[in-house]
Each structure stands twice: as C-alpha cells, then as structure tokens.
C-alpha cells in the first residue's frame, strides 16, 4: 500500500493535489478481465443529473451522453414515445422547450458532435502538424501495458514499483518522443521531481494551472487514458475495500501532466494564448446548454415510454400460483437471463416454484479452485469476503499434487513455446499437430470446460454458529422461510463460451465475474447440515427432514443446467432429482427456442448450443442486453407476465420483513449492482468511444487484464460494440433501469434517509423507482427529494395537460 504525505505544500498546491485525487475518483474503476464485472461509468457523477453530466463530458471527453436526435425521432414517429411521455418529460425539464411541438421539431436536426476542450497536446498538434495526442496515447499505452501486465510477457518489468517511479525510468530512457520531435523529453523526465506530488505541482505551475481550472482538466487527462486510468482507479477501490489507500490514479495523472508540460515547453510561444483561453474555459462553471436540456428531456420521454410499456406488462393478468407444498423449488440469480429460464421452467409443471436471489447466495466466498493458488473473490465487488472455501478435501491431496505437476509441466511447455530460441524448436517439432487443433476449433469440437465436479468446502473457521447465523439471514433475505419443497435447487449461473476475452463479463456479476455454482453448492451444504437445521428451527425456520438442497449451475449461453447432487451422497432423493432433471431439460429447450429468436444466425435451440462452441462467434449470448427493470416482489406478482428476459427478479415479501432490514439490503446491494449493469449498457450505447470496449474484431488482449483495439494505445473498458448491437440495430435500448418494489413508500423513504449515496441514484434519475401494489401493478412513482406521486394520477395530469 502506498501513501503520500500532505506536509510541506503551500495552500494553492494543496488544492491542486486535492483536485488531482478528486479527479481520480471521477473515473470509474475497471476490473481485470479475468474476473470482470459491470461498472457504472458515471460512478463519479451520481451526485449530478444527466444534463450536468452532459456538460461535463462534453467538455472533458467530447462525447454526448444521450442518443442522437434521430433515434428519439424514430421512437416518436413509430409511437413508442407518446405525447404524454413528452409532456411528462417537459415537466421535468421545463427550460428545454416551450411545448412538445418544439421538442418534436428539435428531433429533426442532430446537434453538432461535441468537441472536448483541447489539451496542450491537441494545441501542439495544431501548430506542429504532428499528431501529439496520438503519440502520447501510444507511448502511455506501451508503458502501461508493460506496467500492468499480469503475465503475458515472459520478461516482465520489475514488480512492486510505484507507477510514477516505473514510468520515470521508462520514459527517461525511451527515445521515441525525441525521434518524433520532442527535443529533450528524456532529460525533462529525468529532471522531474521523483515524488509524484512534487512533480504534479511543478507541472501544474509550468502549465499555469489554477485549482479552478484543474478540476475538469485533470478529469480530461485521466479520461483520455481510457481504461488505463480506470485500472488505476480499480487499485484504489481494492485498497479502500481493504481499509487502505492507493496513489496510482494520481501517478498516471502526473504522467499525463509531464507530457503536457514537455509539449508546452516546446510550443509555448505558439500556443500560449490559446492555452490561456482553454484554462479559462476549464475554470468556468458547467452549465447545460439548450441542446443538452432538449437531449435530457428526450431521454426522459423515452424512459417514460419504457416505463409505460413496463406498466402494461405488469398490468397484464398473471398466472395463478398453486397453493400447497411445491414439488420443486428452484432458486436462480436475479440476473435477467434467469427470467426466461424461470418462466420456461414454471410452464413445465404447476408444482414448480422458482425464486430469485442475488447469485452469490449471500456467501461472500474467497475461493481457491482445485490445485490452484489463485484466490477467487466470488462475491459482489462492493464487499469484502467473509468466508473462505476450497475445492477438494484432505483426501484429495495426492490428486491435488498430480494436477499441480501437470499444470506446472504445462506451464513449462508454455514458456518453451514462447521463449527466444526454444520457440523455433517448438514450431519445427510440433507445428504439424496444429492441423488437428485448427480442425477441432474450426468445427467447434472443443468440448466445454465445465467447473470442477469436486465439491467446494467451507473453511472450518466458519463455525456452526456462523453457519446458522448465515442461514437465517440468507433464508430471510430470500423470503424462503416456510413451505419448503422436498427438493430445493440453488442455481448459480455462468456462461459457456470459447476464445472470448470478455468471458468473465458473461458470468455472474454478483459472484465477482466468476461462475456461481461454488456459492450455490456451499449454501446447499450449509442448509443440509443437521446441526444447522437444528439451529434454524430454534429460530423459527423449520426445514422438513425430507427437504434436500442441491447446488447447480445454469449455463446462460446454452440454457443447460448441471446439478451437483454428488455433493450429498446417499441423499435418497433420486426420484425427485430424476423428475427435476426432466423438467429442467424441457425448460432448457423452451428457453433456447425463445432466445434463438433474438440471436443472429440461430434458427432454433440447437443453434444456440452450437454457437457457444464457435471460436469465431462474437455474440454467443446477449448477456444482460435489454435489461430495463428490477422487480423486488413475490414471484406471484410477475408470474406468467412476458418480461422477455429483461427484468431482474428478486423475491421479496415486505409483510415478513420486520424493520425492513431485508428491503434495506436489497436497495443498497442488489439494486446498486443492477444500476452498475444498466448504466454500463447505457454508457456503452450512448458513448461507445469513451465508455465502450470498441470493436471485438480488433481486440488485442493486453497484460491478461484488458483489451486494446489493434496495436495498442488506450485500454478499453465497458462493453464491446458487438455486445450492444447486432449489426442492424441496438440490442439494448439505453433506458435507465426502473426499480419496482412491493413495499410501503414510507419504508423506502426511511432507507433513503439513511443512505444518501443510494438516494442520489434515484434523485438524479440514474435509476427510476416505483412501488407495486399487491397485484403487481405500479402504484407510486418516486419523484425525487423523498416525494412520491401516484402512478395513476401522474397519467391523469398528463391527459389534462394535453387537453389544455
């Protein structure tokens, strides 16, 4: 952990340092692709509204944060956005236009593409004709790819060094800048203060920066690094979770500043005046333009329209749920991909009940796979791990050793393959074998890698009392405390893809970008434990003796499921399991057929499975594309309603939630995670250049942690273009998520009073919030500032407005 001191700086300089650190927090973190999760790209801006963020990102990134006008126009023309939606939107942004006619007219003309304020590099490029921004980006990329490399290169940089130190060593030796025409760059780098903060202050002084101008300027420099600054921000995130701090965001900012300083030193006479203007522009307050207000209003209208459609879906008559003891309970992750499968499964037999719960099943596990030293954090990234687990028991020691030897020999072979001189021997001796490999992969015959069959085992340190406590908390949070079926399946989920750098992004986000079966199996183990059940019954949760919990894995790419009943040898539930397997197979077929309609080049369910093995497939599944709602209510409210795999479904029964502790948990954890997912899609659609991962066809994995497009340059976080677009149209409408909760509005208001950061998400409309009534219909809308308006009345108002 690295920290810096504040002592010895003058007031103005202290302000600059503070601005530099704040700029680091304005950037969203980026998880490495080995275990990646969706991140809200506006994480640093949730205290601001959309128009405010529009101005900010226009200035610092040259991007818009809404769609082009014609996108809204098309929706108005085809009736998706109604006049009522426009009226409601205007009520929210009264300054946007005088009336809805003006708003409609505004959709005919696309506004000019936003242009960011120029950096010194941009100004230098203008006067010199040399593409300095390109050079800086390329040079930073070369250094950063080496610095953040986790094992791609055999000859690594010296590890454990601070970013700025490592860069100074690199840049003072690197001759590229001087060859390109920046005289004395190496010497300048060598003469910068070794301490990051001193270098920051020196560079800022050289550039004539005031604290006021620095705020958005620093933000711009960091955003210009794309994913590299986000990786730095990730380090800070992890350090803070562990109770520490990290300085890498400031380090990478100062690296950018030193480039700016060097370019300014060379071109000052030509760009001085312009640079003064830019500084003044940075220092000016951010205020939305008319155009940005119109954009925001149109976006609001589109969201109203989406909510209207959602309300219609929810208003449709549901299916009756059968009373009595279900034959099977199957719990799935709240992930929208579960919705299709749950609906299919329920349709197979009325005795089946499905439930939705965050896919880590309440167990924050740090897990070591079989024969592996890697600690996989299989838990939401907002949390620290609470339990540790491991695949394999003491009796597996020999197998563990053998597997490790095989893996190490494989690793030695891998190094042989890639090392100088030995790679020639490798090619000449084994090249012809690749005929077979090419054939196998071209024909998609590489079998899927399935998770370990061996059961994960919880560490003994998590004792009986802990397990009972966890079981109570988890069952309550699942609203599953009575009427247990004889067989309760707990399904984690994971994708099943090949040759896909973004594979982990398709896995379970609640499990930190890993597949979810480990947590599900761990929970099943706890709940089957006789002692735990005894403890549960003392606390009023009676699990019948004939109830068996079994963990499983829902493969979201192929909708196949695996059930790990081998974890509980001699369980005596074989007939239940056989029946369940039959149902699950039928449900899988239904779900695949439904999903085939959305996937390109999939005529039927069989194609869906085949595509998952295709090494050239860029769209093996749609993941969470299209997500638009989060519903926390008993399943009875939504059962049989066509939610099209676009809703997160969390089982929640407020009548049983004393003190609304579970509601608080839902609003502060799963809802926040869902907002990250929804907003990642939003950002990747509306601002693909800034917040999207670019074109999969050009992806080049760097350092084992991320992708760049083509040769290098900026790391790209977010979603690839192919994940949000099918070539003809968007697979995701950029509408911010509607959260629907069946609970009293006052209870929610009380929770907001305790959690300002969650409230900000709703107040600034990064999320929308509705309460549901006992029929699953929208009842009240959260209108910001702890105010609620009835949904029906809001519609009536609109009608009156139109009439007037």
């Amino acid at each position: 952990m690295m920290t810096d001191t504040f002592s010895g700086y003058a007031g103005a300089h202290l302000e600059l340092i503070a601005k530099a650190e704040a700029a680091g927090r304005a950037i969203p973190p980026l998880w490495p692709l080995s275990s990646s999760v969706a991140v809200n790209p506006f994480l640093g801006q949730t205290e601001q509204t959309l128009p405010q963020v529009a101005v900010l990102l226009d200035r610092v990134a040259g991007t818009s944060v809404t769609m082009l006008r014609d996108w809204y126009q098309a929706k108005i023309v085809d009736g998706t956005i109604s006049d009522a939606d426009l009226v409601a939107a205007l009520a929210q942004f009264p300054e946007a236009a005088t009336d809805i006619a003006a708003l409609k007219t505004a959709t005919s003309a696309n506004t000019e593409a936003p242009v960011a304020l120029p950096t010194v590099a941009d100004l230098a490029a203008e006067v010199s004709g040399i593409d300095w921004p390109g050079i800086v980006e390329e040079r930073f990329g070369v250094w950063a790819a080496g610095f953040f490399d986790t094992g791609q290169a055999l000859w690594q940089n010296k590890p454990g060094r601070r970013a700025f130190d490592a860069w100074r060593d690199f840049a003072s030796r690197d001759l590229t800048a001087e060859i390109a025409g920046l005289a004395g760059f190496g010497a300048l780098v060598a003469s910068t203060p070794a301490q990051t903060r001193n270098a920051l202050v020196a560079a800022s002084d050289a550039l004539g920066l005031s604290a006021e101008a620095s705020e958005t300027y620093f933000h711009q420099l960091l955003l210009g690094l794309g994913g590299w600054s986000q990786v730095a921000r990730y380090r800070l995130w992890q350090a803070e979770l562990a109770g520490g701090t990290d300085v890498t965001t400031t380090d990478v900012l100062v690296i950018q500043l030193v480039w700016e300083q060097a370019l300014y030193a060379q071109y000052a006479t030509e760009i001085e005046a312009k640079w003064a203007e830019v500084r003044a522009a940075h220092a000016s307050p951010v205020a939305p333009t008319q155009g940005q207000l119109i954009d925001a209003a149109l976006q609001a209208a589109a969201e109203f329209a989406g909510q209207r459609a959602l309300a219609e879906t929810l208003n449709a008559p549901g299916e009756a749920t059968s009373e009595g003891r279900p034959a099977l309970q199957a719990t799935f992750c709240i992930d929208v991909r579960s919705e299709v499968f749950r609906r299919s499964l329920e349709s197979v037999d009325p005795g089946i009940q499905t439930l939705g719960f965050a896919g880590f099943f309440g167990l924050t596990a740090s897990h070591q796979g079989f024969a592996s030293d890697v600690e996989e954090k299989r838990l939401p990234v907002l949390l620290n791990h609470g339990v540790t687990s491991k695949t394999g028991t003491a009796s597996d020691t020999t197998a563990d050793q053998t597997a490790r030897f095989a893996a190490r020999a494989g690793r030695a072979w891998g190094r042989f393959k890639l090392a100088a001189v030995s790679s020639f021997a490798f090619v000449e001796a084994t090249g012809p074998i690749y005929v077979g490999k090419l054939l196998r992969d071209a024909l998609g015959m590489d079998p899927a890698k399935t998770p370990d069959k061996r059961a994960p085992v919880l560490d003994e340190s998590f004792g009986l009392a802990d397990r009972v406590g966890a079981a109570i908390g988890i069952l309550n949070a699942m609203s599953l405390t009575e009427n247990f079926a004889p067989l309760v399946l707990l399904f984690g989920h994971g994708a099943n893809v090949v040759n896909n750098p973004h594979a982990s992004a398709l896995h379970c986000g609640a499990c930190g970008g890993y597949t979810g079966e480990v947590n599900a199996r761990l929970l099943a183990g706890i709940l089957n434990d006789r002692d735990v059940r005894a403890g549960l019954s003392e606390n009023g949760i009676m699990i019948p003796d004939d109830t068996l919990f079994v963990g499983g894995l829902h493969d979201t790419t192929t909708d196949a499921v695996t059930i790990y009943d081998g974890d509980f040898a001699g369980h005596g539930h074989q007939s239940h399991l056989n029946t369940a397997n039959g149902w699950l197979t039928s449900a899988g077929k239904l779900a695949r057929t439904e999903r085939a309609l959305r996937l390109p080049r999939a005529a039927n369910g069989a194609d869906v499975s085949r595509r998952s093995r295709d090494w050239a497939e860029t769209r093996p599944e749609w993941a969470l594309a299209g997500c638009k709602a989060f519903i926390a209510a008993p399943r009875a409210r939504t059962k049989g309603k066509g939610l099209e795999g676009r809703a997160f479904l969390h089982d929640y029964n407020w009548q049983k939630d004393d003190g609304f502790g579970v509601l608080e948990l839902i609003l502060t954890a799963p809802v926040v995670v869902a907002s990250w997912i929804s907003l990642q899609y939003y950002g990747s659609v509306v601002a693909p250049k800034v917040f999207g991962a670019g074109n999969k066809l050009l992806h080049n994995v760097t350092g084992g942690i991320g992708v760049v497009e083509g040769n290098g340059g900026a790391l790209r976080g977010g979603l690839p273009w192919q994940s949000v677009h099918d070539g003809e149209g968007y697979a995701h409408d950029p509408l911010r998520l509607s959260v629907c909760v069946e609970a009293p509005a006052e209870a929610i208001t009380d929770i907001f009073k305790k959690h300002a950061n969650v409230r900000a998400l709703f107040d600034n409309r990064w999320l929308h919030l509705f309460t549901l009534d006992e029929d699953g219909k929208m009842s009240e809308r959260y209108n910001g500032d702890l105010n609620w308006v009835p949904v029906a009345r809001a519609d009536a108002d609109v009608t009156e407005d139109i009439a007037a």
Partner: protein
Amino acid sequence: MLLNALPLLAPLMLVAAAFAPRFMQGVDVRKGAMFAEMASLGTIAVAVLSAIVLATVGNGDSFLIGLFGVGLSVSLDVVSVVMLLLVTFIGWVVVRYARTYLDGEARQDTFTFWLLATLSAVLLLVQSGNVVQFVGAWIATSMCLHKLLLFYPERVAAQRAAHKKFVMARIGDVAVIGAAILLASSYGTTQISAILAQAEQGTGGGIALAAAALIALAAILKSAQFPTHGWLTEVMEAPTPVSALLHAGVVNAGGFALIRFADVMLLSPLVLALLVMIGGFTALFAGLVMLTQPTVKASLAWSTIAQMGFMILQCGLALFPLALLHIVAHSLYKAHAFLSAGGAVERVVAIRKPGPVAVPNMSAVTRAFVVALAIYGIVYAVLGLGFDFAGKSPQAVALGAILIFGVAYLLAQGFADEAPQALTQRTAAYAATVTVSYLMLQRASEWLTAGTLPATPAAGALEWALILLALISFGLVALAQATLPLWSYHPAAQGLRVHLSNGLYINAISDRLMGGWKRTSSNKGAAQ
C-alpha cells in the same frame, strides 16, 4: 500436360465465389460468405487431387495459357503441392472463421471479396509455372492484402501501418520484377522449371547472381526481416482473420521465393551468407523483443518475425527442405495462435494457478544444456541407424543443435532446485519427444523433397564460419533466456528492456522519415 493444370481451378473457384454476389440475384452478404466457405473447401479438394496427380504422374509443368511465355501455367512439384495444401487449408479455416466473425459488420461483403482475392493471388503464386505469373501474383497478393489491412480506413493507426507495409512491398515488387527480367534474359525462358534446370548446371553467370541477390532482397522485405520488419508489428489494425492470413500465409512468400528459386540461390554463396546473417540476427533480435511484449497480438507478430528469420537462416544455410518444413509448421501454429488469441485472458490466469515458477540456477541450466545435447546425440545415433542420418550435412547437424539449445530451456525448468521430481520427469519426457519429433519431421521433409530441392552443398570455409557464428550466438541467447529470471530485474537489464520493447526504435524512425505521425485531414479532431 492437361492434368498438371488442375491447381488453376483453385484460384478460379475463389474468384468465382468472390464475384458471385456481384453478378447473381439474391445472394446477400451471408450467402456470399457461405459461397466463400464452400469455394475454399473446394480448393482443398483441388489441392488434394493435385497431390494425387503428383504422386501418380510425378513432377511436371502444365501448358501455358498465354503467349510468348507470358500467361498462366502450373509447375506441379512437391514444393507447389505442399504450399497448395497448406494455403488452401488455412484459407478455408480463415474464410470459415471470418464468415461468423464478421457477421453483422457493415462491409462484410467487401471483406469477403478481398479475402478471396488475396487467397487466390497466393494460390496463383505458389503454383506459378513461369516468372511472369510469379511476379504478377506476388504483386497482386500484396495489393489485395492492402485492401484488407485498410478494412477500417478511418483508423489512423491502420493507415500508418499499411503505409509502411506499402512502401516496403513496392520496393520488394521492384526487386522481384528485376529478378524476373534478369532470369528471363539470362536463361532465355520464363518457365521456372527450365530456369532451375539450367541454374542447377551452374549456368547463368553474373546476371543470374544479380537475380539471386534481388530475390533475396524481395524475400527479406516480404518476410519482414530486420530492419524492414517494422510494419509487421503494427498491422493488427485489421480484423483478426487478416492477421491470421498474413502471418500464416502471405508473409511466407519471401521464404517461398527462396525455396522456389533454390537452384538460382545456390549460385551465390555470398548472397546465401548474407541471408544467414540477416535471418539469424532477425531471429535472435525479434525473439528477444517478443519476450517483452505485453499484448498478445504484438507478441505473436514479433514471434513471426523471429520465425521468418529462422526460416531465412535455413535458406541461407541451403537447408531448403527444412525451410519448407518450417513454413508449413509455423503457418499452422501461427494461424491457430492468432485465431485463438481471445483465450489469452484464461491462459494468463492459468499461469498463476499452480503456484510460483521454479527458477533454475546457473548449474541447473548448465546441466540442462549437457543433457539436451546428450539426448540429441543419443536420439541422433539411434535414429541414424534406421533412417540414414549419417549422410547429413554439417549445416543440418548444426541447425539441430540450435534447436536442442531450445530444448535445453525446457529441461532447465524441470532441473530447477525447487522443481519436484515429477516435474523433472515430465519436462524430460517432453524434451525427448520434441527431439524425436523434430528429427523425424526433418527427415521426412528431406525425403519428400529429394530430387525437387537441391541438396545442401558441402561446407566451405565461409559456411563453417557461419555455422560457428550461428551456434555461438544462438547458444548465448538460449543461455540468456534460460537464466532470464536471474538477471531480468537488474537495472541495466531493465534499461535494455525499454529499448528492446520498442523494437530498437525502427518504427519510430520510419514514422519520422515517412511522416507517420503527420496529421492528415482524416485524423484531425480524432484526439482524445
């Protein structure tokens, strides 16, 4: 002979499939891509049939479709058939891959068209029966590939890389045109087999020597040899299948030219010596740079440069059958490596799973080299009894020794003090398998090409000097590689790493000279 013209069907099929969507009703982009795959499957069938013809009828040229030695003709022999099999197979894999990969891409039809065009140009090149066709196909390959490299014309980095490649390729074109003219005027024919037959007799004089030099120059440019290699490390700016095609197909053209005109090349020991030095240096230099590359595709690109260097070295040592083996083996490996580059994330994670790497110390490395050479000796002796290894040239033996230095690295990892016995045994088994496999493949390629490719001439003083130089330099680098963890974090080594990771600034210099970072109208405002 009519049958010998069979391979011409292969490029014809691809061209037909390329133009089908333009002239047929109802052929949309997806159908066009399907036609492309069908046609590329058809070319495999043509290549297999050609192999059968060769096996039954033997070497021979087809008639010429054209006049005065200018036109299309096929030289059917082991070299062209092996290349046909290789290119059609990889072509099919790449076309099939692109069919899915490019789906939904706005200009997929354009991509498919130029992909097929490039492939048919390569197919025409490898079957060339006359130098005019050779030159035409050579240039067409590069021109068609250029269209693929600029598939995203708006990408500034793509323009920069393609421009570098374009300049190098045009110099290469001039060299290859010059070589063709010199060959035709020197030997009075454009027919390649006739030229080779005469060259084999040692005729041709100074003009033929000049032709050999020009062919060498063209090969160096085409196969990205130092210092003309820069473009190859930057052309990942096009969709992945283009990289696969380039690295597994097009870049081989340099080596192919040397092998095709082997008899001519043998006329000039001096040119061959130059190839040994350039190829050998490139192999070592690029191999070291590769170690420092943190992105998967850049690492693969440097690997290609190194492998091409090694192949050119083999040509320089007049080990043409081995160079052909190297082209085939490397192409298959590299096509797979590029197309499966998306798995890099999982591969890097897998490295960390089984715990820390056991680092061999100096004595373990020394033991490894001794044992590796011993394995080589034993395998050589044992196999030699059955497979007539006694007649091998010192060049081939030395080359085997170089490869054994590589095997030593594998052993060294198992000999590290911390390495458990099980690991030692496994790496030793791998090492023995690799050695046997290599020697068998080497023997097989010599057997297959006997009579078609010239035998390695007896080593003179120059050759012995080169052999020694190669042995020493490759041995030293292999030693440095095996001991890398012992010195790689030293400040001096880290400093060297900076320069190596930048490829010794060849690209930076050529960017400066060619204005690679000049702002053009298309990249203005693209900043940030």
